[in-house]
């Protein structure tokens, strides 16, 4: 085994490059850096799995039907809070087609949100399963409830939890977030983020701004609902198909629930129809799906399909919590921030995780005094869970709009105010780049002119920043690369492709190393028996997986180089590779010829990824990972007579380390912008305060942006950074790309109107209320 090696890497971004020394673990390939000239990685390549998706051949969990499979259906509580007095599932057992029935609550148990599991059945058809549910008799004693966040904070509000609350965290959560610093009534305080003395900073301030900002509950609404199919292979082993972002989280939960060895639970996720943070584990955040499907299948002695419907998906599979953020900013007369103080309350329903992210704490780091205090407020509603950059879009909205309102008081350009407080060199570069490319200065003048004229249709320009960490995980992934005697190349890993395009990127990495065409690399993912891997959450996939894949490919290449040396009668160190040929001196051997000389069936190597070993130029929150930078600019058109906001343009400037595939990376950023636009303008879970149920658990009144609601143009610009983090230089982009969108749009609306709309979504009534054209409706 060679010792650890010390190598020099060229890192940095744009013109700001420098050499750093990095200590690499034994066997680790020298990282691709700013000097590397790559031929396949970094070039646009269409998705390798796309032909399956455009022809309907891709199999999702919804499409899996084992022989004799039964349909499961779940009876859910109609009440937001009730004690179950009696439950009789026996009548369901004798209904036509029914094979198994399961009570999920016992008399005396309290249910605490409308949508909670009560009972389940498995039957031959969905109609029979539904009919059987109607035969189940449940007696409830209803109790007082509270579904409104502000009401739940009041003394004397009905208590959601009677004891200490256990936190549920998944791979979708931001590392380091979470924890508790005490609980009182329905309010559970999170550990605060603190720097300097914010109270003192506010007292010193000559100019200050103070306001309350609110955001709504946002549901993930992945198009494929949570779904699991279970087939028992004997009493102690099972095959599970699950629509999941984390194959191994499904395996582990299922094994734990049924007391199996993890290795005896075989999980498949060939394709999944979106996740956005809600799909980890065998169960949904608010429904014990893994247990239900597994137990029904065990009792029935037949495979069971449990596919939630759209209503269930809204009620019990997680959501982005709402927030009510009281923001105080202080500044000197010349525009130096003296304090940022955020007091945030938000409700993840019966769950935890309503914190507002690192935006206020981490971005405008020249402000010496910062205090961010977050609180979870429990309500009788389905649990929240990680959703694409948990906490951050809501935190960005309040912070960035407050910064804009302060800039107005200071008579400063809000972009200048940001630039003078942000120390991240990449983000500063992005702000400057965007300012030029977006036409910021001219745009702001145009907006001001329309405001001054009191024009009916206004324009507005806004900007906001993103902060996230490179959470790429070490020692979590084992990838296997094989080269067969027929010259074919295969790479295997137990990873799921959520739609970000990792399948293609994996093929590109192997193609780069082995100098094979991308199409010649067969990528096998989506199966727990293909080697350990990570969940697709926290923007970790590409950063965690590609280095292990590269290490495996390099391992194979080393073996092939030795084989070539033998064939060419040279030493391995004399062999070079070009255009898929091994050369030594004047002699060469082509790929196909070389592979025929492989002894046995194949040359095989596995690869792992060590811990992150570099974080140039800025570390995230004092840790050892790079702080991912991004900024987005938005231009809106607001009709001041109707209150309708339309987003004309978004310019998204992001870094994601070394861009592996610009085609799919661009799509992912575009998708983040569209999700953020939808959050900004239309999406909102509406709860009935009288009955305690969700009023719009569907897709016609829960409004997701359609093709005509998205920005007229979305420009994506990458500012590649070599951080020296891992051997491919990849870091994530999924979450950063949606963090600043709603904030930038809200800032643009502020610019258009001259007054801020402080509540998301930015609906016409709120715009008109901000203009004083209609009375204000209470927010949240």
């Amino acid at each position, binding site marked *: 085994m060679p010792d650890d090696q010390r190598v020099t890497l060229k890192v940095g971004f744009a013109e700001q490059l420098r050499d750093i020394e990095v200590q690499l673990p034994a066997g680790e390939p020298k990282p691709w850096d700013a000097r590397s000239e790559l031929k396949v990685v970094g070039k646009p390549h*269409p*998705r390798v*799995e*796309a*032909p*399956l*998706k*455009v*022809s*309907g*051949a*891709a*199999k*999702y969990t*919804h*499409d899996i*039907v084992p022989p004799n499979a039964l349909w499961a259906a779940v009876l859910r509580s109609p009440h937001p809070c009730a004690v179950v007095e009696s439950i009789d599932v026996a009548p369901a057992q004798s209904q036509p087609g029914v094979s198994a029935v399961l009570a999920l609550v016992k008399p005396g148990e309290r249910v605490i949100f409308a949508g909670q599991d009560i009972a389940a059945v498995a039957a031959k058809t*969905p*109609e029979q399963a539904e009919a059987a549910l109607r035969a189940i008799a449940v007696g409830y004693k209803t109790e007082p409830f509270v579904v409104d966040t502000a009401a739940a904070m009041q003394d004397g509000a009905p208590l959601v939890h009677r004891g200490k609350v256990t936190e549920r965290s998944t791979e979708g959560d931001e590392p380091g977030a979470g924890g508790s610093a005490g609980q009182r009534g329905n309010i559970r305080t999170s550990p605060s983020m603190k720097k300097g003395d914010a109270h003192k900073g506010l007292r010193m301030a000559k100019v200050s701004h103070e306001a309350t900002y609110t955001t709504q509950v946002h549901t993930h*609404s*992945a*198009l*494929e*609902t949570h779904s699991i199919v279970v087939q028992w292979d004997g009493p102690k082993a099972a095959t599970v198909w699950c629509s999941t972002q984390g194959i191994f989280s499904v395996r582990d939960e299922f094994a734990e629930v049924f007391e199996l060895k993890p290795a005896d639970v075989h999980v498949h996720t060939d*394709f*999944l*129809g*979106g996740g*956005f943070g809600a799909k980890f584990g065998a169960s949904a955040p608010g429904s014990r799906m893994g247990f239900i499907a597994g137990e029904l299948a065990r009792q029935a002695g037949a495979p069971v399909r449990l*596919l939630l*419907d*759209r209503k269930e998906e809204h009620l019990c599979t997680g959501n982005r919590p709402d927030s009510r953020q009281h923001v105080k900013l202080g500044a000197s007369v010349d525009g130096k921030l003296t304090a940022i103080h955020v007091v945030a309350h938000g409700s993840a329903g019966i769950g935890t995780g309503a914190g507002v992210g690192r935006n206020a704490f981490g971005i405008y780091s020249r402000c010496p005094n910062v205090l961010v205090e977050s609180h979870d407020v429990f309500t009788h509603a389905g649990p929240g869970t990680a959703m694409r950059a948990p906490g951050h879009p809501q935190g960005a909205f309040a912070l960035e709009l407050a910064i804009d309102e302060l800039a107005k008081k200071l008579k400063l350009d809000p972009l200048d105010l940001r630039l003078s407080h942000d120390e991240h060199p990449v983000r500063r570069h992005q702000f400057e780049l965007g300012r030029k490319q977006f036409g910021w200065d001219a745009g702001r003048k145009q907006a001001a002119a329309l405001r001054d004229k009191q024009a009916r249709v206004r324009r507005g320009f806004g900007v906001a920043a993103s902060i996230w960490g490179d959470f790429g995980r070490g020692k979590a992934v084992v990838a296997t690369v094989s080269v067969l005697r027929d010259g074919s190349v295969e790479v295997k890993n137990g990873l799921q492709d*959520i*739609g*970000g*395009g990792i399948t293609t990127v994996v093929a590109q990495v192997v193609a780069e190393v082995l100098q094979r065409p991308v199409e010649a690399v067969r990528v096998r993912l989506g199966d727990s028996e293909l080697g350990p891997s990570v969940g697709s959450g926290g923007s970790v996939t590409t950063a965690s997986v590609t280095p292990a894949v590269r290490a495996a490919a390099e391992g194979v290449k080393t073996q092939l180089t030795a084989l070539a040396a033998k064939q060419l009668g040279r030493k391995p160190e004399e062999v070079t590779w070009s255009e898929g040929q091994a050369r030594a001196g004047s002699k060469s051997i082509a790929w196909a010829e070389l592979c025929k000389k492989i002894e046995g069936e194949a040359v095989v190597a596995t690869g792992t990824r060590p811990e992150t070993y570099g974080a140039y130029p800025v570390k995230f929150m004092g840790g050892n990972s790079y702080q991912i930078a991004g900024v987005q600019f938005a231009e809106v058109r607001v009709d001041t007579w109707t209150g309708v906001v339309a987003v004309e343009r978004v310019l998204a400037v992001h870094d994601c380390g070394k861009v592996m595939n610009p*085609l*799919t990376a*661009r*799509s*992912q950023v*575009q*998708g*983040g*912008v*569209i*999700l953020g636009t939808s959050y900004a303008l239309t999406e909102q879970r509406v709860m009935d305060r009288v009955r305690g149920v969700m009023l719009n658990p*569907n*897709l*016609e009144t829960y409004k*997701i942006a*359609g*093709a*005509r609601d*998205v920005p007229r143009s*979305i420009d994506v610009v990458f500012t590649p950074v070599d951080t020296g983090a891992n051997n491919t230089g990849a870091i994530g982009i999924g979450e950063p790309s949606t963090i600043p969108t709603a904030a930038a749009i809200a800032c643009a609306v502020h610019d258009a109107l001259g007054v801020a709309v402080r509540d998301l979504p930015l609906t016409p009534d709120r715009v008109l209320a901000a203009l004083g054209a209609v009375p204000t409706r209470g927010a949240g």
Partner: protein
Amino acid sequence: MSDRAGITRRGLFRGIGTAGLLAGCKPSERPPTTTEEHGDAAGPGAGEAALGPGPAPLAFTLNGEAKTVEVAPHVTLLAALREQLRFTGTKVVCDRGACGACTVLIDGVARNSCMTLAHDVAGAAVTTVEGLAPGGKLSVLQQAFIRHDALQCGFCTSGMLMSCQGLLERTRGQKLGREDVEAAIAGNLCRCGTYPNVVAAVLDAAGGSA
């Protein structure tokens, strides 16, 4: 269309079915598909006799192939395709006409299959995503989707493709603008955010095939 004059009230309602009555989100220049033209020859499903409550025979053309299946009258075309015929390319997302994921072509017109009773397609020609690439060769539209990266997770893709195919079929030879494509996919929701790439793909395919 000339045959409209001969429609009876009963025939009209039977012909339009739930698809016609509820497919307001799928604007089309063609009148609602009726079973008048094919119905009489299509077996009991299109005849005057009442159906149900048990399964009744249904004959229609699926992706160019004649199919006869026993389907209960309450079963939607979507459920029949996925659960009985195992054509799972067509997806269930909302199951109530709000998202377009289940879009198929019925006699060339894009329809929500979740809002269409299976027996309403008696005698009609149904095309699903599996029918876009006869013989396994991807169509110009499918290739354009791949080239423009008009898909991410892929779950809306089948419905998107069928809405776009419907657009291409009814506008064959015409020059298309962005608004035409956006109108055609206005009823198709995508959660990954592929809309701009879908528009680009369709415009490319329309230009390429015109």
